[in-house]
């Protein structure tokens, strides 16, 4: 087998953060090469650079012995590199055939040749064994798994030398996965090189010829897959490190275990299946898991943002309930700092003052519906000082603040409102070290006041630093809970993969 794609010294920086450092990787013709790593290890970043989806901060690439530096996705495709991304890139309002051939619709004088279009689409689908998908069906009407198959068919239909698949089987059923594998094996025989990203280690074990492991943006090893077990894979991803607690926080007094401040019982909502846990007063409870394991969905279900299907949530000594709207959850003693502050955390066009006060106006800063502006200003001002928000004043528009300071405003909003239990979803994603430090201090202070804290994070360092216990979700189930004495990066990663391994029974 000859070397098809070779990259060396691949580096990617976002501002001062390096997410990929000096990674080398090669792909042979007719090879399936698995790329493994924990969340944020740099797998997707590496693939995006190869597929021309993001610029390269450093490094060289060679494709078929020629220097290769795609400016964008179309030029990568021209060179013969196709990528199937995790998120779907189909246009839901167009039909299957139009989506399949979108960039090369057969046309004469600008008029689409429908017969030709559907014939070619049919052939592409049949090759994947998708004879039950009609080419006239609107893509939006297909289920997620079927859409994923159409997306894969689109990529397979284009002539390519390198095919990158980022978690292609996440939404597929068992039989769909089998059919996909048959196609991949067929392509392998035709000499196509494939980079395969998956969290499903038994799949990797089965189909990949070689496996490369990345950790923290660095290359760890490349080995023939048959020489390593799935246990080895997890060890390599975690560095086999102990990742022992670096907790700085002082030991706190926890509330009694039999009277938790938050207890979640058998909560089920979409992907989240039958999750139960309890958080004591003063305790910081971490939740982690792979992307798509249902972390955010769990928090949203607890908070009533997406009403749960079954199960219950109990806050303090209130009655067990299931919140159906965030308004109920807030009255019931919960607060939630959302993951995407721009999407659903902040009013970007408004001032720090408005954002800080928005959900405290009715309970604290008004009389007979009229806003008590002085009180509102005072509160916003003191929050700014307490959080050390860097701003020109409380009237500064939030959208003009840095990410870290924006996050401080989100936290300030909930501190102003007050709650018994604070839910944090990725509280420090994409923010600078100083702001991160400040937010950890706030979390610690809240816990010392006897509040319950739940932190969802994919950053294990963060959880090790802030949490008393860490629970691991795998495919929507809470599979294991670790306490300070028992946790390690390795153990947590092993648990994260639990639902994705056929040999999960043994530990």
């Amino acid at each position, binding site marked *: 087998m000859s070397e098809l794609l070779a990259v060396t010294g691949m580096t990617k920086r976002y501002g001062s953060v390096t997410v990929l450092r000096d990674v080398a990787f090669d792909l042979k013709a007719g090879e399936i090469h698995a790329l493994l790593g924990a969340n944020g290890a740099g797998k997707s970043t590496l693939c995006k650079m190869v597929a021309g989806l993001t610029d390269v901060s450093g490094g060289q690439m060679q494709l078929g012995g020629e220097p290769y530096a795609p400016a964008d996705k179309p030029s990568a495709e021209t060179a013969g590199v196709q990528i199937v991304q995790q998120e779907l890139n189909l246009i839901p309002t167009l039909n299957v055939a139009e989506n399949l051939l979108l960039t090369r619709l057969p046309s004469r004088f600008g008029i689409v040749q429908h017969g030709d279009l559907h014939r070619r689409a049919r052939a592409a689908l049949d090759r994947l064994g998708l004879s039950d998908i009609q080419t006239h069906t609107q893509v939006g009407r297909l289920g997620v798994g079927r859409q994923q198959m159409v997306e894969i068919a689109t990529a397979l239909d284009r002539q390519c030398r390198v095919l990158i698949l980022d978690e292609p089987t996440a939404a597929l059923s068992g039989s769909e996965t089998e059919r996909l594998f048959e196609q991949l094996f067929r392509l392998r025989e035709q000499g196509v090189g494939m980079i395969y990203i998956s969290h499903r280690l038994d799949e990797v074990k089965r189909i990949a010829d070689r496996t490369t492991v990345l950790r923290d943006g660095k290359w760890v090893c490349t080995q023939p897959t048959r020489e390593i077990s799935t246990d080895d894979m997890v060890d390599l991803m975690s560095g086999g490190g102990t990742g022992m607690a670096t907790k700085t926080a002082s030991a706190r007094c926890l509330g009694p275990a039999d009277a938790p401040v938050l207890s979640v019982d058998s909560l089920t909502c979409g992907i989240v299946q039958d999750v139960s846990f309890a958080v004591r007063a003063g305790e910081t409870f971490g939740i982690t898991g792979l992307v798509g394991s249902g972390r955010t969905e769990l928090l949203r279900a607890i908070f009533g943002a997406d009403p749960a299907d079954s199960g219950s949530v109990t806050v303090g000594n209130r009655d067990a309930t299931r919140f159906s709207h*965030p*308004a109920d959850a807030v009255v019931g003693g919960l607060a939630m700092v959302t993951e995407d502050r721009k999407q659903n*955390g902040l009013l970007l066009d408004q001032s720090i003052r*408005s954002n800080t006060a928005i959900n405290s106006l009715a309970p604290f800063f008004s009389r007979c519906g009229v*806003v008590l502006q002085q009180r509102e200003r005072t509160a916003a001002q003191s929050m700014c000082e307490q959080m050390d928000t860097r701003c020109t004043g409380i009237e500064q*528009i939030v959208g003009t603040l840095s990410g870290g300071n924006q996050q401080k405003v989100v936290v300030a909003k909930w501190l102003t409102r007050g709650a018994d239990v604070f839910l944090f979803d990725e509280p420090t994603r994409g923010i600078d070290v100083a702001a991160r430090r400040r937010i950890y201090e706030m979390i610690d202070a809240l816990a010392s006041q006897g509040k319950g804290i739940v932190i969802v994070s994919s950053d294990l360092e963060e959880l090790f630093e802030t949490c008393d216990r860490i629970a691991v979700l795998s495919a929507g189930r809470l599979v294991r809970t670790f306490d300070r004495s028992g946790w390690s990066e390795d153990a947590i990663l092993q648990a994260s993969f639990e639902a994705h391994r056929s040999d999960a029974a043994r530990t």
Partner: protein
Amino acid sequence: MKHQLTQSVLQYAGLLGVLLLLIAVFSLSSENFFQMQTLVTIANSNPDLIFVSVGMTMVLIVGGIDLSVGSVLALGSAVLGVLMVHYEWGLLAALPVCLLATGLCGLFNGMVSVWFSIPSFIVTLGMLEMARGGSKVLTDSQSLYIGRSIEGFGEPLQSISLSPAFLVAVGSVIVGQFLLTKTVFGRYLVAIGTNAEAVRMSGIRTAPITVAAFVISGVLVGMAALAQTSRLSTADPNAAIGLELAAIAACVIGGTSLMGGRGSVIASFIGVLIIAVLQSGLAQLGVEDATKQLITGAVIILAVLLDALRSRFGKSDA
């Protein structure tokens, strides 16, 4: 406090400048224009547009639009006409029924668009047809002459030459501005218009707030129906065609964003005055209707253009 005052004067300085400039231009080109009588006439002939623009401002701020105001006004007017002419009710008895009818139209607009997540553009477009049809059914497509019993509201008071209708309309501007800037409700309106999902995730129920904006718009349209019916002494099922566009134009000239989250009732009020002065000034100059339309349209675009430029420079300053 002083700082705040300066700021709010500055906020409206541009708009007031445009208004005064228009008055000055017309006064120079037509010697009859700059007379108390002209200005008073302008004031007394526009309370309906003022009422409607106050409601429209709230709906636009919350991120909606209400295209049905003209037809709903005709419906309210038809209700007044039928009750006062056919059933010989007094104004004080008929008015609450009129306000109830137009308020229910607003409630319908708000509930359907919020509950079924249908853009209010579509729902109110449907209401535009329904209410027009309803007003024609009620009146059998005939204008109903009501006469003296309703004229008092629209007639100038002897002492100050302004009509009660205008005074109440100005009152609605003041109350509207207070609601918008000083109350929790107003702050919610702006917040929902900015990012409804963030407001929901903050633990605030957005649906009742949004519906309330449409109801307020509906009730104010009822007041506008009273003002117009009173001025014309007649309930006309074909009244106020195209009024929604005039109201939206007034709001936009005043700087209200069609995307929601930004706007001011006072600015919309000044927007109404600018349109009114322009119309009547051009009429006094003897400009033909066709040319008047051309110029009015151009002024609307110019106003929005100025606003866009202002906010662009505003951003680069920050």
